[in-house]
């Protein structure tokens, strides 16, 4: 009855992510990072984005280096297997290519921020971050007293992303999707957001998705677009579909040491290709083949019979 939400990545980004939006990505930590979506954001030259995410393994560094980002809210930006993020440092320390503001969170508080939003709660109180610099550098946190114990607590305010972009294994045309493996803060991030873009390895018929209604990550009413983009998380891994292409992270780390090196990397891998298929073609079939899981490890079906 609802019309299909399937569209191209270019159309999904153009329609759902305006410049100035707050965008939550990388919610499954080092897995299922929506790189295909991120590269399209760069190609569309979006500006003044607020990026939200826990640790952002390399994707946020790319968006920052490409000049799309005005603000980051999260716990860590860098390259997990190689170290720091050169673009993040340059932007924050020297304003290259443009200055960015940072609102420091920990992995727990970013989860609590989004969880509060899912509950319509103005904030969630926690002891995490007591005694830390976060309470000075991020004005969103408030010090308070727990009226039950009299103890000091930290209030973590609700955070509502304009858009959360999820890379998942499978979805139907209406945005009902299944994600498994590492999930991190994906459920909270998607459910907290005003709108969701679902990027799926596979599009499945509705009846095979709703055959496991407990696994559906987010209500379809939140989903504004569904994009069918195989290998859309590369070089990050996706359980059951492909492993992590760590050498690609290492090479990016080296290439992005200088602004010039990063510009060349961006030209080659993002701006110089038309779409994600172009990126995959450049990676080459041998690289993709090497990342295919060596084993199929199936879960046991659930009987929803009645």
């Amino acid at each position, binding site marked *: 009855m609802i019309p299909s939400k399937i569209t191209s990545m270019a159309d999904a980004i153009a329609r759902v992510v305006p410049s100035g939006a707050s965008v939550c990505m990388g919610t*499954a*930590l*080092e*897995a299922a990072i929506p790189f295909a979506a991120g590269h399209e954001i760069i190609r569309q030259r979006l500006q003044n984005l607020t990026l939200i995410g*826990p*640790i952002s*393994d390399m994707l946020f560094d790319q968006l920052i280096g490409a000049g799309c980002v005005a603000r980051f809210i*999260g*716990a*860590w*930006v*860098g390259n*997990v*297997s190689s*170290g*720091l*993020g050169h673009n993040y*440092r340059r932007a*924050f*320390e020297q304003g290259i290519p443009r200055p960015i503001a*940072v609102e*420091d*969170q*920990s*992995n*727990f*508080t970013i*989860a*609590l921020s989004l*969880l509060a939003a899912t509950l319509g709660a103005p904030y969630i109180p926690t*002891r*995490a*971050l*007591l*005694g*830390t*610099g*976060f309470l*000075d*550098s991020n004005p969103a946190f408030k010090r308070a007293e727990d009226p039950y114990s009299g*103890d*000091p607590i930290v209030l973590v305010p609700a955070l509502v992303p304009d858009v959360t972009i999820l890379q998942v294994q499978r979805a139907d045309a209406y945005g009902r999707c299944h994600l*498994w*493996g*590492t*999930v*991190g*803060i994906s*459920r*909270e991030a998607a459910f907290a957001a005003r709108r969701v873009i679902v990027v799926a390895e596979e599009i499945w018929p509705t009846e095979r998705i709703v055959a496991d209604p407990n696994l559906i990550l987010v209500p379809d009413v939140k989903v504004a677009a569904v994009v069918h983009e195989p290998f859309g998380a590369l070089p*990050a*891994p*996706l*359980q059951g579909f492909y*492993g*992590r292409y760590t050498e690609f*992270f290492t090479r990016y780390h080296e290439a992005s040491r200088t602004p010039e090196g990063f510009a060349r990397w961006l030209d080659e891998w993002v701006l110089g290709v038309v779409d994600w298929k172009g990126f995959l073609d450049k990676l080459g079939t041998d690289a993709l083949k090497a990342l295919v*899981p060596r*084993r199929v*490890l199936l879960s046991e079906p659930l009987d929803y019979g009645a």
Partner: protein
Amino acid sequence: MDYTDRELMVIAAAREIRDGDVTFVGMRLPLLAFALAKRTHAPAALGYFENGIVRETPSDEMLFTMSDPPNLVGATWSTSTANMMGMLAQGLVDLGFIGGAEVDRFGNLNTSYVGDWRAPKVKLPGSGGAPDIACYAKRFVIVMPQERHRFVERVSYITSVGHGDGGDWRRRHRLPGGGPVALITTLGVFRFDAETREAYLASWHPGQSVETVRAATGWNLRVAPDATETATPTAHELAIVRDCDPRGFWTR
């Protein structure tokens, strides 16, 4: 016996894991330390990862990140980060590992900003879940390379709180966890005084001395009366570390 600084740090970190410990494993060296402890003195230790994974056994494969697909194979739980941090916040985690770019004599850690956070000299990558571990774990262990400019009298920004200003600071501020119990560096192992909570040198690594450690410490170093040389890695320990990191990605 030939080994690298990092191999020695892994082995020293593994010795901090008690059998049965619920351990927040993290990445890099602590991940190897967990695998080593499991295969030696702590077979019943449990590994928790902040992406939501619980393991009773280390992964069969080398991991570059905690979210690499092999880390799910044989996992006994894979839940949300909120739930996993909830394990911490409920007081169910015995031991965590944290690294840092700067540490001070009370074990406070900085991985955020070098210099004033309003106009820092260096923007570090950030905290991840380290502040949460530092707040809630019953005890935690710091693992980081030792250089004088990183071992400072007072960190310029507290990302992960150690013993604060020392003494009973944690208790007064109602921090539920126990704070740092060891600081394992490239030069030695520090522990924290039961009263003052100041770090003191408990052992220097083979080839180091009190003087070389003092030279690389930016505060007035205290040394345990019974300080001694760190036990040399055994061939068995080294073999396991190298089996877990065959290409030396983390340890060379």
